[in-house]
């Protein structure tokens, strides 16, 4: 069989193992699912009436942002999972087997899609309860969810690399906060770009997080004629810009992580 086919077959075996663990340690899952619910409720009720968006209810505007932020935070899980594996004896078993050298990473990033799917589902339900509605076509909405998952998958590979370099779960959790909070806040996730001051606004306009959020927002029909996207390329073509970033991230971090994994332990 081809090398790629083996990477997928072995990755599937590793992913299955990770998914069994999701079921066996449900405490983790509970926290993963509670934090997005908390975010939806906090933002909807605390900021709900203080941030006016022309033509759109803030709660509808908010949901795409919450989705994006949560799936990006979900990547922290990938890093923590890899770091935990690297500390344990099981990694020696994997490394002594004639399996694909990328399978541990392929399997981990794949099984974390399940986490993100679950948290998106929980968030969507919570959103519906506080008044969020999908105003466009269902097909577009599905496209929006798929884009969120694809972007989250790419981001998982960044955190997988971090998990290999910093093999400590605590450090990863703290370090990722420092990076992910600014990245998801200096964007159109919770406030309109127009509200941001000059340099921050430029950063936000080219922030891939903004592109993913805007693309999802448009896919869910949570935008308005009265509130057009800023006139920059990234915001005019958010899907293309987001996918461009997905490609760049994967092209850099997949080979980087696999090489790092091979050399680990030496």
């Amino acid at each position, binding site marked *: 069989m081809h090398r790629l086919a083996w990477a997928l077959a072995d990755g599937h075996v590793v992913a299955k*193992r990770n998914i*069994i*663990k999701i079921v066996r340690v449900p405490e983790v899952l509970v926290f993963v699912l509670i934090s997005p619910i908390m975010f939806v409720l906090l933002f909807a009720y605390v900021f709900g009436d203080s941030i006016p968006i022309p033509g759109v209810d803030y709660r509808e505007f908010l949901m795409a942002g919450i989705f994006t932020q949560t799936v990006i935070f979900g990547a922290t899980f990938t890093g923590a999972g890899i770091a935990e594996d690297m500390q344990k004896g099981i990694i*020696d*078993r994997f490394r002594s*087997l*004639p*399996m694909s050298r990328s399978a541990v990473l392929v399997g981990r990033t794949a099984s974390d899609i399940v986490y993100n799917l679950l948290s998106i589902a929980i968030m969507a339900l919570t959103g519906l309860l506080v008044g969020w509605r999908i105003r466009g076509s269902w097909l577009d909405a599905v496209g929006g969810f798929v884009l969120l998952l694809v972007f989250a998958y790419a981001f998982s590979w960044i955190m997988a690399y971090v998990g290999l370099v910093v093999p400590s779960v605590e450090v990863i959790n703290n370090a990722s906060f420092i990076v992910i909070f600014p990245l998801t806040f200096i964007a159109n996730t919770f406030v309109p770009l127009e509200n941001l001051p000059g340099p921050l606004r430029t950063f936000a306009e080219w922030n891939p997080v903004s592109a993913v959020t805007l693309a999802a927002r448009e896919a869910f029909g949570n935008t308005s004629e009265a509130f057009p996207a800023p006139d920059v390329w990234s915001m005019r073509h958010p899907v293309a810009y987001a996918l461009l970033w997905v490609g760049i991230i994967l092209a850099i971090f997949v080979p980087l992580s696999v090489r790092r994994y091979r050399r680990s332990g030496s």
Partner: protein
Amino acid sequence: MEGTIRASGLVKRYGEVLALDGLDLEVPQGTVLGLLGPNGAGKTTAVRILTTLLQADGGRAEVAGVDVFEDPSAVRERIGVSGQYAAVDEHLTGFENLDMVGRLYRLGRRRARLRARELLDRFDLADAADRPVKTYSGGMRRRLDLAGALVAEPTVLFLDEPTTGLDPRSRLGMWDILRELLSQGTTLLLTTQYLEEADQLADEIVVIDHGRAIARGTADQLKAQVGGERVELVVRVPEQLDAARSVLQTVSLGDVQVTPHAHALSAGVTGGADALMEVLRRLDTAGVGLLDVGLRRPTLDDVFLTLTGQHAEPATGDPQAPDEHTTEVA
């Protein structure tokens, strides 16, 4: 030629520290080499290099006819490894662990399952097969880990301190399992801190210290060098010290050692428990009363004392001194 291990001039550096300093090893097909040394001697480093987990800084190595540095993935297809720390997943069941390993050895779904059940039966884990490994005892984890190493029926097996940390009963159980394996002609490289373990299982022993082999030979040759077993006894009344000494002299290999203020004597013997029984019979006939008597087998420490003139110093980790080497018959 299929199942041999050959290594020459292995060197591994960790910064300033030379973990391996030109180690040579040769394990012929179907034999067992015991790599004996204290903590930090380089045993684990050697195993990790030979099993492709670690890259060497120098030397050559060949396992099962394959160059370890040229073609590590071909080596992985032919070997089984079980390490000092059980390489099993705590949250999976015993069956799921072995099934996963079987799939990753690419046995296919059906054969992986079959093999997992077979090994669980053989290692007395069938009852615990569907329980998460975190509920297993230390001995059960080790057996499961060893089963993992055997999934693909490797021709060459590496076991890194398979009984370290196990209680004496689990250790004996592990030895039985290993003996049965060896009767099937598996080539084995075994590391251990226990001379007795190497003696029980290995055809040849290499004593390693600071990354270098400091002695090699069969267990008998090594024991002959360190002086083998000793009978140690304490007489009830000091007046019988002389009588006890003349009895011991009849079985002793060398001079009988006497420690008068402790009323103690010791003598080198061969034949283990049989020799001890003979001593007891003769002492009984001579009417010598005893406070304590025992058979003391040589330990790694004795080997080191003889070979290097120094005690076996653990460079790292727990300086555990297992006392089950002394068989008390008090």
